[in-house]
């Protein structure tokens, strides 16, 4: 391939001129001589990294506070992973069940998270979610309606009452588009297809900027910023079977770790029980929990509704123990207990895993999810249009006629940057985190529907506090030019090597090997010797990372981009494995074959991971204590 020389022509583009007009600092342009690579410098008060639900909501809030902000998006605007959220957004609006309130939502969230959650985050989330949903409506979102014209809510796993505001099964699209349009109407400056490779710290180890590159032109950009807000989403791309897109490489988790932030609960990875299993090309693609919320049931190859065999003691008192009662619950929540098909995701995923391993799986290694025999074709198409379309187009299955085949898929990262519940501030001054990249909110297992609400509740809080921090910031942030040059040099290394050399590593091959390692050794069921082996494998992969060589140049080069992403993926996978090795119990999404039960003592601690030099350090630290008035919520109802 011929190289296209990347020249900084875009220096004169209108966006950059406009941004210059709002900047307080005079310096801008490719003038820094510390490296021979040209780059542009932009100055902002707040930099929001990530343009999914959390990043957009944060950017909107920060903008409303009157600070200058930039929103960086790894993809084009409006394409972030939020778009794939299907089932709904959890909020105790009480439109369908008037008994619902924030206390019940809080209790469900904590119990779903196996009590590992940061209680304060779970409380704020439950209290503020309804306002955030109503706000989305005020900004143009059109949720499905109840008969009396209010926002309709649907049942979902682990939620006691019908709580998920939704738009058919494409709620994430409605949410991201609403937030996107709001952000655009506020004139928020967006840098699309722009990826941050390093956070810059000043001499006090506080945030002062970031190094990024812009895919479409292949140039590096340096941002100075008083505060930075991470809203970068998840890490699922490091597993073979995942519902996550190429973006979910843990980029923000890694940036925070490298900047010295405390990371918590990194062992808590959620495997969603229902991903597609066939054909191979769509293996892992999400099948919404809404299918079960709307009446779908899980069956094994014997036609048995096996979930009745997997009801854990913690949920026994509120779960139906016969098919008759479970079916009655769909029409009358007051007189029957909920179906075990809607137990929290960790429970259902483990049950499916056991059924398949016991030889009772479907032809392609999953189990059956059947809504065809239980609801009319019209109902299914109206409630689950995307699922209908997805199975029809990609698997040739008509879900109004035949059951789906489903199995667990790596879906969501509960762990992440340790943040203050109120402000979303990390342990690094000036660094904030919201959404999936932040840890604590969901404990050891997230309930369906709690992600979208998390994005807007903590997106808003993080945006607010990042803006306030920036307002009280003294002086101007001054990144160290040496650090910038170093970061750029490191990034361009894979381009300077000969990709045809004998020891040259292909980034795609390395990624495949990492995904195989994580899938087989750090998957849904874990055990000590496999985790130890995984750490060794990751070390070897890190050594191979040094030899990565890519063809082409910097402009829209996916191979090079993957080479950079692999650094984050390996760092994050190492954290996950280290956490998993240390948590010697089974809790939520973290299941240990060699420690199959909950350990009350371990339930009181978070494992905190920090980078010290080139090493990772893991420390058990006591979890924040829930105050007695909230504690009571768990005693009363048992």
């Amino acid at each position, binding site marked *: 391939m011929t190289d296209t020389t990347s020249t900084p022509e875009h220096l004169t583009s209108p966006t950059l001129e406009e941004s210059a007009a709002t900047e307080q600092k005079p310096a801008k342009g490719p003038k820094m001589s510390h490296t021979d690579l040209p780059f542009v410098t932009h100055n902002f008060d707040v930099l929001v990294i990530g343009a999914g639900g959390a990043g957009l909501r944060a950017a909107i809030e920060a903008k409303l506070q009157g600070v200058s902000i930039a929103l960086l998006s790894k*993809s084009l605007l409006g394409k972030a992973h939020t778009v*794939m959220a299907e089932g709904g957004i959890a909020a105790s609006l009480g439109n369908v069940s008037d008994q619902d309130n924030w206390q019940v939502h809080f209790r469900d969230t904590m119990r779903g998270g196996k009590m590992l959650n940061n209680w304060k985050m779970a409380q704020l989330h439950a209290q503020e979610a309804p306002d955030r949903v109503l706000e989305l409506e005020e900004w143009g979102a059109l949720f499905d309606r109840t008969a009396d014209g209010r926002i309709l809510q649907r049942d979902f796993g682990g939620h006691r009452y019908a709580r998920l505001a939704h738009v058919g099964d494409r709620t994430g699209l409605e949410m991201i588009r609403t937030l996107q349009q709001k952000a655009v109407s506020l004139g928020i400056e967006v840098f699309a297809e722009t990826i941050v490779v390093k956070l810059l710290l000043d001499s006090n180890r506080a945030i002062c900027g970031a190094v990024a590159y812009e895919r*479409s032109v292949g140039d590096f950009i340096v941002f100075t910023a008083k505060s930075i807000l991470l809203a970068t989403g998840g890490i699922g791309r490091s597993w073979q079977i995942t519902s996550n897109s*190429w973006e979910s490489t843990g980029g923000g988790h890694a940036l925070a770790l490298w900047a010295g932030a405390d990371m918590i609960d990194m062992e808590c990875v959620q495997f969603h029980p229902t991903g597609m299993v066939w054909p191979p*090309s769509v293996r892992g693609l999400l099948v919404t929990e809404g299918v079960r919320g709307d009446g779908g049931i899980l069956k094994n190859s014997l036609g048995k509704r096996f979930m009745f065999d997997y009801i854990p003691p913690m949920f026994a008192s509120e779960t139906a123990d016969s098919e008759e009662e479970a079916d009655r619950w769909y029409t009358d929540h007051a007189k029957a207990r909920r179906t075990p098909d809607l137990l929290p995701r960790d429970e259902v995923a483990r049950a499916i895993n056991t059924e398949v391993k016991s030889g009772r799986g479907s032809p392609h290694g999953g189990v059956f999810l059947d809504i065809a025999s239980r609801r009319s074709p019209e109902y299914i198409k109206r409630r689950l249009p995307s699922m209908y379309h997805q199975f029809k187009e*990609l698997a040739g299955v008509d879900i109004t006629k035949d059951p789906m085949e489903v199995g667990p898929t790596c879906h969501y990262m509960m762990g992440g940057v340790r943040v203050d519940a109120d402000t979303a501030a990390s342990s690094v001054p000036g660094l904030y985190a919201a959404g999936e990249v932040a840890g604590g909110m969901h404990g050891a297992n997230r309930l369906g529907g709690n992600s979208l609400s998390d994005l807007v509740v903590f997106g808003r809080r993080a945006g607010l506090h990042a803006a306030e921090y920036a307002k009280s910031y003294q002086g101007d942030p001054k990144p160290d030019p040496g650090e910038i040059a170093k970061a750029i040099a490191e990034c361009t290394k894979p381009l300077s090597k000969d990709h045809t050399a004998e020891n040259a590593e292909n980034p795609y091959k390395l990624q495949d090997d990492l995904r195989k390692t994580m899938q087989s050794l750090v998957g849904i069921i874990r055990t000590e010797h496999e985790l130890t082996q995984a750490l060794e494998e990751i070390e070897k992969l890190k050594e191979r990372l040094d030899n990565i060589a890519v063809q082409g140049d910097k402009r829209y080069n996916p191979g090079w981009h993957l080479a950079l992403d692999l650094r984050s993926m390996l760092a994050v996978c190492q954290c996950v494995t280290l956490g998993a090795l240390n948590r010697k119990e089974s809790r939520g999404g973290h299941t240990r074959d060699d420690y199959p039960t909950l350990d009350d003592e371990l339930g009181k601690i978070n494992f905190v991971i920090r980078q010290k030099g080139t090493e990772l350090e893991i420390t058990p630290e006591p979890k924040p204590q829930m105050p007695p008035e909230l504690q009571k919520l768990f005693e009363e109802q048992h």
Partner: protein
Amino acid sequence: MNQNDRQPAETQDKNGPATGKVTLRIWRGDENGGEFKDYTLDAQEGEVVLDVVHRVQSEHAGDLSVRWNCKAGKCGSCSAEINGVPKLMCMTRMSDFSSGEPITITPMRTFPIIRDLVTDVSFNYEIAKKVPPFTPGPKEPDGTYRMAQRDIDRIQEFHKCIECFLCQNVCHVIRDHEENKANYAGPRFFVRFAALEMHPLNTNNSLGLLKEEMGIGYCNITKCCTEVCPEQIHITDNAIIPLKERVVTANYDPLAWLVTKIRRKTGRNTSST
């Protein structure tokens, strides 16, 4: 760039209908020009075009530029022209093609090339900035908004849009007339305007803007946009035609003209222009 560069050349050196093999003929290049390159791989069960493109990347051309995200038809990133037909690569199954024939993949023609299959779609993001924000009326006394499902069914159809821009790509008004881009919003944005116009809570009126700046009059209802919409939105019938009717009514209906005139005089200007 020269649009003809991206038309498939007359079939040459076919790799033959070898069983179990697939050949992708992918346009590679940038704004300075490019060429088709053939990649032949083993066929695999159940694949979509994007799967094979990914295998080309990992096995043959690590730097092959392609946009994609969800690989589930939900994000609208992987738009391209497959054998000349605008489609999402992630929703086009390999089994739709007869074996042995090379499958030609070119970038969307209406937008400037960045590299290979990736185009500069910023035109659309610039139009989006001109759309007036949703402006709801007052809430009910209980602080909520009430809307009947039947009143929002139509708009929910419009909200299904995944912004793949295939409708923009295929629309003749801009596909073959670069000069029209300055005065034309395109089908995607007519859908957006229709969603705003028909939203039961929205109070601002974009009919003047649609006529004067968004060029709705340029659309001659050939329905090409509707045909390529992966979300099966009835773009022409449900969005564009009703908007055209509203624009006509607002501008040429004598009674409506009089009402507007009176409102303007009394300061109740409902036009956004």
